[in-house]
């Protein structure tokens, strides 16, 4: 999803929303069936990624071990056996050409996908928060300079600039780290725009004026009055940006400029699968399907988070909206 749309959606939440602690948030999230299911899927994926060495050891496989005996070299390297060589030993079959165990590669691929996207998202949010707050609270000059920098940042489409940067950074630099840095380093403008706009809106509210009158300093006000209200839009943005970052990583690897072999990555598998789909369709369908399920689950979860944090949406769910009984007729 594009940044402009994310900004629109995550930034639409009203600046002033009643307090909702973590418990209320979870209750609202659980009230949504789809989001709960998505959360389970995401949890499972995260566990798989974390336990990758354990799982592959359990399966008795190594992601980088070649098994030339399992592919038919006469037929160009098609896996021997039905469904891409699925067997009791190779749960998802083997990679065409090399015979490497697909289950092990998929499991390690999940590590790369989720890890890269996580670091990138955290980086985006951290940078955006600092820059957005500085623009909103700093002097007019600071705001203008940061505004220009944001404009330049927007002019750099992530895909194109990531491609370009990957060209000049030495091969020795670890690619997963580099990709996370690139996506995070140039993807902060969405967060900073939301933070700036919301902080400015909040700043004009009377409770901030009251805090000034009570004699508190600027940074104390930012921390105690502004940050808690910024949490909702920022978390929403992060939840919706995370799946987008997974797609970007997969896309870069698909183009052959992202994660370099032998490190496994779903996007990279898809590039190779392109040539094998007739002989070994599972080699294409498994990473494609996983990528789809992961991104879909994260997106649905992101939507759920948004609904749980947006009190207007929450009132539609009928959870935790107890207000003083004096509503308008």
């Amino acid at each position: 999803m594009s940044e402009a749309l994310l900004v629109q959606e995550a930034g639409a939440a009203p600046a002033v929303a009643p307090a909702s602690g973590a418990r209320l948030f979870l209750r609202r999230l659980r009230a949504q069936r789809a989001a709960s299911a998505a959360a389970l899927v995401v949890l499972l994926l995260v566990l798989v990624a974390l336990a990758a060495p354990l799982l592959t050891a359990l399966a008795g496989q190594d992601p980088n071990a070649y098994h030339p005996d399992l592919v038919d070299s006469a037929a160009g390297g098609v896996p021997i056996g039905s469904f891409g060589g699925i067997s009791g030993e190779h749960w998802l079959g083997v990679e065409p050409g090399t015979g490497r165990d697909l289950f092990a590669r998929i499991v390690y691929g999940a590590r790369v996908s989720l890890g890269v996207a996580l670091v990138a998202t955290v980086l985006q949010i951290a940078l955006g928060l600092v820059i957005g707050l500085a623009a909103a609270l700093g002097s007019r000059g600071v705001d203008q300079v940061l505004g220009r920098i944001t404009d330049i940042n927007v002019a750099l489409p992530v895909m194109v600039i990531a491609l370009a940067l990957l060209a000049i950074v030495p091969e020795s630099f670890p690619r997963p780290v580099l990709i996370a840095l690139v996506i995070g380093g140039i993807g902060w403008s969405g967060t900073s725009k939301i933070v700036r706009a919301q902080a400015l809106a909040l700043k004009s509210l009377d409770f901030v004026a009251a805090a000034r009158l009570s004699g508190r300093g600027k940074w104390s006000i930012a921390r105690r009055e502004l940050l808690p209200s910024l949490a909702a839009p920022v978390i929403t943005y992060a939840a919706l940006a995370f799946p987008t970052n997974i797609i970007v990583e997969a896309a870069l690897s698909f183009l052959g400029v992202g994660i370099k072999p032998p490190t496994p990555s779903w996007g990279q598998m898809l590039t190779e699968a392109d040539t094998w789909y007739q002989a070994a369709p599972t080699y294409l369908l498994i990473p494609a399907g996983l990528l789809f399920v992961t991104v879909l689950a994260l997106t649905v979860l992101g939507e759920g988070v948004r609904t749980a944090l947006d009190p207007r949406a929450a009132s539609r769910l009928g959870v935790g909206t107890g207000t003083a009984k004096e509503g308008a007729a």
Partner: protein
Amino acid sequence: MTGFLLRRLGGAALVLLALTALLYAIFYVAPGDVAQIACGPRCSPAQVAQVTEQLRLDDPVYVQYAHFLQGIVAGRDFSTGTGTEHCAMPCLGVSYQSDQQVTQLILAKLPVTGSLVIGAFAGWLLLGVGTGVLSAWRRGRLTERVLTWLTLAGSATPVFVIGLLLIIVFCSTLQWLPAPSYVPFTENPEQWAWGLLLPWTSLALIESAKYARLTRSAMLETLAEDHVRTFRAYGVGERAIIGRHALRGAVAPVIALSALDFGSMFGGAVLTESLFGIPGIGRELVHAVKVVDLPVVVGMVLVTGFFVVLANAVADLLYALADRRVVLS
């Protein structure tokens, strides 16, 4: 109005200037050994020295940057070893690989990318806005739920996955369509359309999800506004309320997002072009990245930046025109 336009264009020019400096610093200064990169990894020290001389890499950095800028605004001369070659403005340099001028290279690819983007744009706008209107109209019913899930699935699918599946189904398995290819419109309009049909479809399917979301949420927001209640209270029917009042609220955001997408895609629909083998700007960029052809990489990024900055300015303007409540300032 004119003042707004001038200020906006002035700002855009400033952003582009800063962009050139940034790109120059990243790509020509940071890597250090530009001569070696230009010459290629197998060059002897003597050859590298010759390239350094030819490209005037001994000059101080600011002089080199000044030449680079001069090329863009006024054109410049290049020594080719046997003599000099004039590169007319806007000169983005000469490819290290093919000795072709980057500007010419990009101009040659522009119609290709243009064909792809314009066709896909028409598709996603129609499909996306249509879906959005339908789901806003049938809100709370089964139709809306189905459309919402389809839209979610669309935004969770990377364009290269849907593209791959389309190729497999329609070209390889069913053989209803020829393999995607690019034939210039001027040569054979029929083949042009058939060759681009799948790329258009994939891009339109994926992008339309965004537009459906945007249209739906903008319309639902409008439907909750007081003025809709007024027209209901005056006996105006649901169809007029949806088609005239609610849809009008979605026009400005849809136009603004279109301009942005249009702009950034002209810088290359990198993934789509690579997947379908369409020789446009995006595919050229991937190639240039793989062979580290710096002038081409920088030129393409700059052109993309130019389109995005332009699109941003146009988006602001269109937004202001479409939403008369916004005061131009």
